[in-house]
Structures are given as C-alpha cells and as structure tokens.
C-alpha cells in the first residue's frame, strides 16, 4: 500500500499531500463512469430528441414542429389535462399525507403495523396496481360501483373509464392512493422532530390545539412540505405506466398528460419530430422542478 502523507481536511474531508493517489485526478476518475453513463443514456438522448423536433421535412433545421404544436388544439388540451392531473394529485397527496401523519404522530400500539400497511401501496409495482384498479373500476363487475351503490346520492353502473371526467378522477385516485403513504411517512418523521418544548411553551401561553397546529406544527414541517410538494409534482409529471395501463390516455384524450402524449406521438403516430417538441416541454418542466428542489433544499440546509 502506498504510504501517503495524510493531512486531515477541515470538514472531515480527506486530503493528501503526496503520493500516487494524491493526484488531483482521483475524484474525476471516481465519478467518470457515472458521468459517461448519464451522458450517453440520458443527456445525449435529451439533445437528440430536441434535434428530432427541429428537423424539417427536407432535412434542414426549422421550427415547423413547434409552430404545429402551438397551433394544435390537442396540445393545449393535453397541457390542460396535465395541469388538472398534476395539481390535483399534488394537493390531494399533501393534504391526505399531512392528515394521516398527524393522526399517527402519537404513540399507540400497532404503529409499526400501520407503517407496514402504508408501505404496501408504494412497494407494489405499477403494473399490478393498474390491473387491480381496472378490475375494481369495471362498470359491470367492479367493486367501485358496488360501493358507490351503497351511497344514497350516487347512481349505480357508472362507466368509470368511458366518461372523461370520471376517467380523470379514476387515474387521480389511483395515483394518490399509490403516492400518499410515502409522503405521510416522511411527514410523520418531520412531525416527530418538532421539539416537545415548543408545544409545552405554546400550551403555557394558552394556545389551544388549533393555535398549536398553526404556530408550532405547521412552521415546524413547512420546509418538508415544500420539498414534498416538489417531489409530488415530479412524481405526477413523470407518471406514465399507471395512466397508460388504466386508460391508455383515453377516453379519446381525456387522461393524456405529458408523458403519455410523448409516447403516443412517437409510437402510435410515429411522429418523432412532434414527440420531440413535446419532450422539450417535459424537459423544461423537469429542469424547473430541479431548480425548485435545489432552492427548497438550500433553504432547509441553511436553517439552524
């Protein structure tokens, strides 16, 4: 083993003065394989996709695909569906997750069991989840209609996946079901980190349960909620498999969001140029999400 003269870095980092491995190249050699893999299989395809979108029919570069996209009413409808789906999923996931986390922020017997049950939806792969919900939503045999029939104000035999509004509701319900337990467990961990002393102090000051929630609980988990909002946004804009296998983006285009739209253009209509143009929108959305994530993360890191 090369005996290098070791010097200890200030922040627990390792620095070396001399020796074979002291070269400045070491960190770059360590990350090179990851860099190459990401560059070839993710970054290059992003650029290639953008180039597809700029290819004119004669081979030159032009903006025809974008002109077509912006003039295409289907594109704007797709953006609308994406907005409805994404925002509803984000808000519903956060509200349900916060509610469940508050319910569980209390020591009770069986909490381990509840945690395990909450792990199941996000552990089950998308494909079986889609199959199960397609069965449950079936208008003829589905248990959704049977349960809905028990409620006085809802009629029976709803055509869940054939009605545009209900189909959107259905994919949102499935996405929230699969997504919220993870967020609830993260929020629970955050709630448990709010110091008890703050609650005690608030109680001494005469704060009731609601005031405690507003002035102690919410500020304590605000940053976690912000971070989870970004993650939920990404989770829902990336969503392909659940939507694709449950509705195929239909009926007609009622549940076609960004990811299924790119897929449909590329592999149903073989229009790589137009698919590339929509993919550029998807790229911009995820670039913005990255920025939002970093901003929230920095804010959390900078706090005491």
């Amino acid at each position: 083993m090369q005996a290098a003269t070791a010097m200890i870095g200030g922040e627990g980092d390792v620095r070396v003065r001399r020796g074979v491995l002291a070269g400045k190249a070491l960190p770059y050699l360590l990350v090179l394989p990851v860099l190459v893999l990401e560059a070839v299989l993710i970054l290059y395809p992003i650029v290639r996709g953008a180039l597809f979108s700029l290819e004119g029919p004669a081979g030159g570069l032009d903006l025809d695909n974008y002109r077509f996209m912006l003039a295409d009413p289907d594109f704007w409808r797709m953006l609308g569906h994406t907005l409805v789906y994404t925002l509803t999923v984000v808000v519903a996931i956060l509200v349900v997750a916060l509610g469940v986390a508050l319910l569980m922020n209390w020591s009770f017997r069986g909490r381990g069991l509840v945690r395990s049950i909450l792990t199941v939806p996000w552990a089950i792969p998308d494909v079986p989840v889609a199959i199960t919900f397609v069965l449950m939503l079936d208008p003829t045999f589905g248990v959704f209609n049977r349960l809905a029939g028990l409620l006085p104000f809802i009629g029976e035999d709803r055509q869940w996946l054939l009605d545009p509004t209900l189909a959107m509701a259905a994919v949102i319900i499935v996405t929230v079901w699969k997504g919220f337990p993870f967020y609830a467990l993260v929020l629970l961990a955050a709630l448990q980190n709010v110091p008890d002393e703050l609650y005690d102090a608030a109680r001494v000051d005469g704060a009731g349960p609601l005031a405690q929630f507003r002035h102690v609980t919410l500020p304590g988990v605000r940053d976690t909620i912000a971070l989870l909002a970004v993650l939920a946004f990404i989770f829902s804009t990336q969503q392909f498999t659940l939507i694709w296998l449950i509705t195929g983006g239909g009926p007609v285009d009622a549940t076609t969001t960004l990811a299924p739209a790119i897929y449909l253009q590329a592999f149903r209509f073989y229009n790589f140029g137009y698919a590339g143009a929509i993919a550029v929108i998807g790229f911009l959305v995820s670039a913005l999400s990255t920025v939002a994530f970093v901003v929230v993360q920095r804010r959390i890191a900078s706090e005491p």
Partner: protein
Amino acid sequence: MSVAAPSARRRRRIAPVEILRVAAIVIVCAVVFFPVYWMLLSAIQPTEYSLSYPPPLVPKGFNWAAYAQLFADKPIGRWLVTSIFVALLVVAATLLLVIPAAYALSRLHWTGRSAFGLMLLFTQMMPAAVVVAPVLALYRAFGWTDNLVALALLHTAFVVPLCVWVLKSSFDAIPKEIVEAALIDGCNRLSVLPRIFLPLAKPGLVAVSVIAFFASWNEYLFASTLIVRNELYTASLGIATLMTQLDTPLFVLMAAGVVFSVMPVLFYMAIQRHVLRGLTAGSVKG
C-alpha cells in the same frame, strides 16, 4: 430515528379523542389496504365469482388444480426469472458505479463537485418518456434492442442518480475521527473506501441494492419499447401483456400480479426507514 411522540409521556385514561383517533387510523388503513385485499381476493377465487355482480366481498371457493394448470400454461415463471436476471445486473452495475461516485461526492474536494451533484439531480428528475424515443433510436443504431444486458444498462442509468444520493448520505454519517485514525494508520484516500466506508455503510448499501433491484423489477416503459421478442419479456412487460389477452382467466392475471408484488412489498417493509431517508436525498432532517 424512533422518537417518542409528545403525548407518550403524559399517559392518561383513554380519552374519547383517542378513540376517534384510533377509528380514523383504522379507516385509513382499510382504505389503503382495500385494493390490496381485492387483488388477493380475485387472485384466489375462481374467475366466475370475481366477474359476477355484485362481486362478493369475501372469497368464494378456491380451485387449486385449475390454478396450477393455468399458471403452468403461461410463461409467468420465465418472466420472473428474466426480471430477476435483469434486476441483479442492475444491482451489480449500480453498486460498481455508485460506490466511488458517492465517496467522491461525500468526502473529496474537487472543482465541479456541485455541478456533478446538480447533473445527478437533473437526470433524476427527468421523466423516462422525455428520452424514450431517442433512446430507442440510439439502441437500434447500436443493435441493442431485444438485449437484456442493454436494458439493464438503461435501468442502471435511471436509478444511479438517486442511489448516489442515498449512499452519499450514508457516507456523510460516518464520523470523521474514524477516517482520520485510518489515514494515520497508513490508509490512503482510496483504501479507506473498502476498509472504512463500505463496512460502516452497510445499511446504505442494502438500501441502494433494494432500490436498484426494484426500480428495474417495476420498470415498464423501456422494457415495452426495447424488448419485442416474447421469450425476452420481463415480468412487468409480460403481465401487462397478459392484461390485454382476452383468453387469460382473471384469477391467473391477478395471481401473477400478486406473485410479482410479493418481493418488493416484503423488502420495502424491511428497509422502509432507510429508503425514506434516502429518497428525500437526506434533506429532510431526522
């Protein structure tokens, strides 16, 4: 990690509020678990019961012989083996790539470190759908379609960014005093990695392996675009295809789904705490 909730210390008689709370928790669990129950139910009872109206809420009958026969008719076993093969390749490749990268990100000073971190975050956020068409074009040019190793490589590319963060947060938690002592004892910047970091970061390595394995296990979009030959189908792709075949009895489809879900559910239950910490990239305190 496990911190006692505020009310733990103030043990009282059971208050009505707590009864309501328990009731609410039971309802939440029921809602969360109901689809899982439905999946199990339709997997064990013969199809004619699942496809009758109103559907029975408790299992009616169980036909083991028909079960075994139909399971043998569909190549479900082969799909599962294929998925295990691809997922194990992904785990191996991921560990190989992620260990040095996480170390460089966690403990070494270098220009471009934060740019590299940002690149990882950016690729992690990228929806697979954005790159699926160009990737197909690239794979066709390489002659890599219908190639399970090439599919594993793609799965690796998509799971590596997250795994670097998970392992980095695991490395970050190793006290600097231990590393300093090892350096004084004659380790160098590279040999502390296998001698100190890997043994101490075992939970992180397990979490990374589980995340990588099941990211590949669950993946559908790339498998469905890059794999065309039936005999190379992964379980995810095979079961999704069963769904569209009208001759597949429902309980076979559901049973295939259950078999496919058992492993990820058990593993994630075992390591949920580590995964939770890792998935939020160490940015949620605690």
